[in-house]
Each structure stands twice: as C-alpha cells, then as structure tokens.
C-alpha cells in the first residue's frame, strides 16, 4: 500500500445469487412453510481482486464480456455491495456507467441537464455555472428548450455526454461511454477525456477499445472470469490480454468431403503479432489447414463473410486475382491475407467453399465465427457508430 494511493482495493469478491424464482409470491410462501433451505445457484463474479490506483493516474480495466468489469465499478460506486473484501476511496467519487441516466423524454434539454446533473451528483449551483459550457459542448443550443423525445438519438447522446463531461470529481469511474455520437463528437469526447486524464484527476476506465485504453491509461488490470490475469503497465496488460483471449469459437469441422479434409481454420492478426484477437484496421490472415484425400488440382477457394444477421458482407476468392491453385499438395495450409480489416466492431461468421474444376467439393456455412474489436483503422482510433458495418479510407481537403 503506497502512501499516495487514492483507491485501494483489497481482496474484493462478489457472489451473485441466481435465484430466478425469488420474485414470485407463490415461491416465497412455499419457502416460508417448508423448513429446508432451497439451494440457490451462485455466481462468482469477482474473485479476490486487489489493486491500487495512485493519485492522478488513469487506470484501465480490460477483459472479455462477463469478466466482471462492470461489477467492479458498481462496487466502487456503491451501487452494489461486495460479498467480502474492502475498498477505500479517498476523494469525491463520480461514476459514469451510462450517459443520460435519469433523462426523461417529456422534459426539455434544459430540464434534463439539471436533472441528470443532480443525479450525477452536481449541485444546482455547479450546474448553473457550467450550463452554457455544457450546452455549447453538446452543440444543440437551438433545441435546448425542446422536449428530448423530439431529439435524434445522436443529439440525445451528445447532450447526455456533455453533462457527464463536465463533472469535476476527484475520482472518476467510467464504463464504456466514450463511443457515443458521430465521429466528430467522438473526437471531441476523446479530447475531453484526455483533458480529464491530464488534469490530475484519478480515473478508472473500462473499455473494449484497446486503442483508447493504451492511449489514455498508464496502468491497469486484465480480468477474466472474475480474476485478475495480468496487472501493471498497460502495454503489458493489453498484450497479455491479446495473447490469451480467444475471440471466436471454432466449430468441430465436419468430415463431409470425399476430396479434402479441412482440419483447422485460424484467423490471426499480423499487426498483433499473430494474436487471435482481431481489431479493426489490423492486417489479418485466414489460415486453412487441409489434407487432400484425392489428387487435387485447379482449386478455387471462396470465403464468404456474414454479419450476425447472416447478411452477406463480402467474399474473398482466389479467382478474383486469377490465382486458382493449379497444383495442390497432399497436405498444407491455404492462407488468405487481408491487409486492412475494414469491419466495424461486432461478431461475424465465415462460410468456406472449395471447388475443383468448377465442381464443388467442400461447402460449410458458418464454419467459424469471429469477433472484431475496436482498433486503429483511422490514426485517431476513432470508431464509427456501430450501425456502420464498414470503414473506408478517405482523404479530406478544403480549398
């Protein structure tokens, strides 16, 4: 425990009861009359977590879905209690687990600023003082007296984020809220976050966007299934996360072809030194390990990428490059390299088709799934809104 620790977390654990029936009156009554205690299912969401955060530090928490990141922030912001262990926070705490908490759609933007501000812990005086700044930052002066139900969703989150951005606590806990609004606004939010980070405030930041994490944080932890897997300097923590996390599930490959046996498919990020974690903008490689069952020639390989709704997005085909494999070894690896992955964050799947002399010899839909994380497609590491599937390079100029 160092002397300038602002946040000290000691052996923190959290167990959730998963007791679906507890909300049912009938269950409660039958439980009341039966003497034996019914077993409830337990979930260990955090297991013996300890770390310190120093004054003025920006501390990152990363990990896959369900690893306990939000649970940890909820405990630190008093929303829920730990099951055991202890946390000490020295300073006024504000938590930002969502933007626009408590916003009411019938009320005007102005009224919602006051409402949301005081929910976030600002005093009326403070809000009045910062009001113009908040409105200015949001860029929606014209609609400030319109009920927010008439706002577009973009305007809504901009206003909501603007209120949050003007909090001035000593300790700020932030969960995944930096990716709201359009690109322009995101750049502004990142700028604001940088400002906060450099203002000597202590910040804990949870994000799936490893670019942002590496940019803003000095130290951090990597959580998986409620346990700290790695902690310390953020570069190392991010690296450990990328090396160990398997972002996709491989189907057991069916033995369906008399011609060829595909034993393994991998998608790797070359940018990330062969890690299986894929980020937007990475150079990636799809590797298909195979064994020929008969002598093959003129092999055409087609990979179709679909989104979560099975919508076809694009295909890769060696025909496009007039690169049909004329001779095929008995055993080997087919690789397909994509220099810059242009997909937004999300889950995708791949269909694999193989043809010999225009005759289909292998066809598996959804042969594997993979996930794309936020990354540095653009130098700014800013990600477009998640309903935009593709990213494209482009150049701006004004004359």
């Amino acid at each position, binding site marked *: 425990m160092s002397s300038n620790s602002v946040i000290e977390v000691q052996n923190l654990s959290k167990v959730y009861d998963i007791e679906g029936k507890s909300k049912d009156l009938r269950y*409660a009554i039958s439980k009341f009359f039966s003497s034996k205690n019914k077993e409830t299912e337990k979930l260990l969401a955090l297991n013996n977590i300890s770390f310190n955060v120093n004054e003025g530090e920006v501390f990152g928490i990363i990990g896959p879905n369900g690893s306990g990141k939000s649970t940890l922030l909820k405990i630190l912001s*008093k929303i829920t209690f730990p099951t055991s262990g202890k*946390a*000490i926070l020295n300073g006024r705490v504000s938590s930002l687990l969502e933007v626009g908490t408590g916003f009411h759609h019938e009320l005007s933007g102005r009224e919602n600023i006051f409402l949301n501000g005081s929910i976030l812990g600002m*005093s*009326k005086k403070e809000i009045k003082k910062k009001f113009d700044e908040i409105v200015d930052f949001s860029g929606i002066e014209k609609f400030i007296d319109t*009920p927010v139900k008439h706002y577009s969703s973009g305007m809504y989150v901009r206003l909501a984020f603007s209120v949050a951005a003007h909090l001035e606590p*000593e300790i700020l806990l932030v969960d995944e809220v930096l990716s709201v609004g359009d690109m322009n606004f995101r750049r502004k939010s990142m700028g604001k976050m940088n400002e906060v980070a450099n203002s000597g405030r202590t910040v804990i930041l949870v994000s799936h966007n490893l670019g942002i994490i590496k940019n803003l944080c000095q130290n951090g932890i990597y959580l998986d299934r409620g346990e700290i897997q790695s902690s310390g300097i953020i570069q190392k923590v991010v690296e450990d996360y990328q090396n160990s996390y398997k972002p996709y599930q491989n189907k057991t490959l069916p033995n369906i072809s008399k011609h060829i046996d595909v034993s393994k498919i991998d998608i790797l990020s070359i940018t990330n030194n062969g890690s299986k974690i894929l980020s937007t903008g990475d150079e990636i490689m799809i590797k298909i390990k195979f064994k020929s069952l008969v002598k093959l020639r003129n092999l055409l390989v087609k990979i179709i990428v679909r989104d979560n709704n099975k919508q076809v997005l694009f295909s890769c085909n060696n025909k496009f490059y007039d690169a049909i494999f004329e001779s095929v070894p008995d055993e080997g690896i087919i690789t397909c390299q994509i220099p810059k992955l242009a997909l937004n964050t999300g889950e995708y799947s791949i269909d694999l088709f193989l043809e010999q002399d225009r005759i289909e010899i292998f066809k598996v839909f959804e042969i594997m799934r993979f996930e794309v994380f936020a990354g540095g497609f653009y130098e700014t590491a800013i990600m477009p809104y998640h309903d935009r599937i593709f990213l494209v390079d482009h150049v701006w100029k004004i004359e």
Partner: protein
Amino acid sequence: MKTIIQNNRGLNFKEKIQELYDYRELLWTLAYRDFKVKYAQTFLGIIWGVIEPLLTAILLSFVFNRIAKANTFGINPVLFSLTGIIAWNYFSNVVNQGTNSLILAQNMIKKIYFPRILLPASKALAALPDLLISILFTSVYYLVYWNDFSADILFFPLFIVLAIIAGISISIWFSALNIRYRDFRHIVPFAIRIGLFVTPIAYTTNEVSPDLRWIFFLNPLTGVIEGIRWCLFGLEMHWKLFGLSMIILALLFITGFYFFNKVEKNIADVI
C-alpha cells in the same frame, strides 16, 4: 472525503440522516420532474387537482348518502365527502405512484448510487401541489356551506401532516415489497379500491356498532379523517381509538424504514 466500501457496512441511523440531507437537492429535482411530467401533456393541467376530488365527492355522496342513507349529521353531503377525500386522494395517489417508483427507475438504480428512498419520497412530494389545491378548493366550499367554526380548526394542518406520513409509510412498505415479490403490484390497486370503501370518507364510524368500531381504526386513515371531521365540524371523536390508529401509523412508519433499508441493500442486483 474518504469512503470505505465493505460488506455489511450499512450506514448507521445518524449517517443515513446526514446522507438524506446531502441528497436533498436530488429529492427536489426528482419531485419537480414527477410534477412536471404529470402535467406536461394534460390540457387542463393543475385544474385536475380540483375536478378529480369534486367529482369523486359528488359520486360518493350520491352512493353513500342518497342511496345508502349514511348520516352526515346535517353537513352538506358533498362538503362532508370532500373533507374525507382530500386526505384519501393524496394517500392513494402517493401509494399508487410510490409502489412502482423503484421498478420504474430500475435503470437508474442499476447505474448510479443515491439513497433509494428518494424515489418513493419524491412521489409524496410531487403530490403536494395537488393536495394543496384540493385543500384550497375545499376551504371555499367549507366557508360557503358551514358557519359554526371553533378553535379546533387549528388542528387541521396536523391531520394533514398525519395523512402525508401515512402515504409515505405505506408507499415505502409497498415499494420495497414490490421489489421482493413482483406480483405485489397486482395487489395494490385492488387494496386501494377496497380502502376507498372501508375508510370512512362519505360516512362516519359513529354509525358503526361500538364493538366493531375498533376494526375501522386499524386503518390509520380512519383516525386521520375522523380527526379532520372533528376539527372542522365538531363531530364526535373516539380518542382512544384514534390513539390506536396513531400507534399503528407509527409502527408502519418505523418498520417501513427498516424493511426498506433491508431491501435497498442488494436492490441493484435483484431489480
């Protein structure tokens, strides 16, 4: 400022009060929101605060006094009902709104910390303007139809305060029960409908046989409303039974806070 987070480190009574004081601005803001939202889209706005009790009073006096021939002791039947309705309407509004106040704010509860009791409490606060308007309107009616005033009228505000406490007590009980047992919300509207008849709004307990009268006073609102009639019209008051009502009210108030506190602890996990 130093915060220690630990299991079972609930706040003690003094810290709780201090915390409520620290969050007073949020209480006002939430109450203002509820008030504003309630009238944001209604054409008649706050006039409803007059129309609603008046219509209810006319209806009740018709059913109870005209048809069931309940005795109003020479008091104008509509005025008689109105004096009961001001307390009842406030009470039932607060209980109705308060019961669902936590469930409806579940997203907020999961995302930010604040003393959860502010949610039902803000409903009690937001209903005050309506109460005030119905009192003003009833006063006009009272001045027109009544001319036999006594100094007891000075106790009137006390009974109104008791009605407010009753509203808060029941709504913190119900809102917490509603979190524990979700089907509780189906019971509440039913309970309120029954309450409208077993509370002496358009009648008095003077007409009930003395052996059974105490049953009515188990309902704290009976004590409150008979108290209002006593100070406004000088009707007979059963002080011992009133005491019973008040003891029950005090118990509901204290146990309500206690139970709420218990439910509040893991509310974000179970809501």
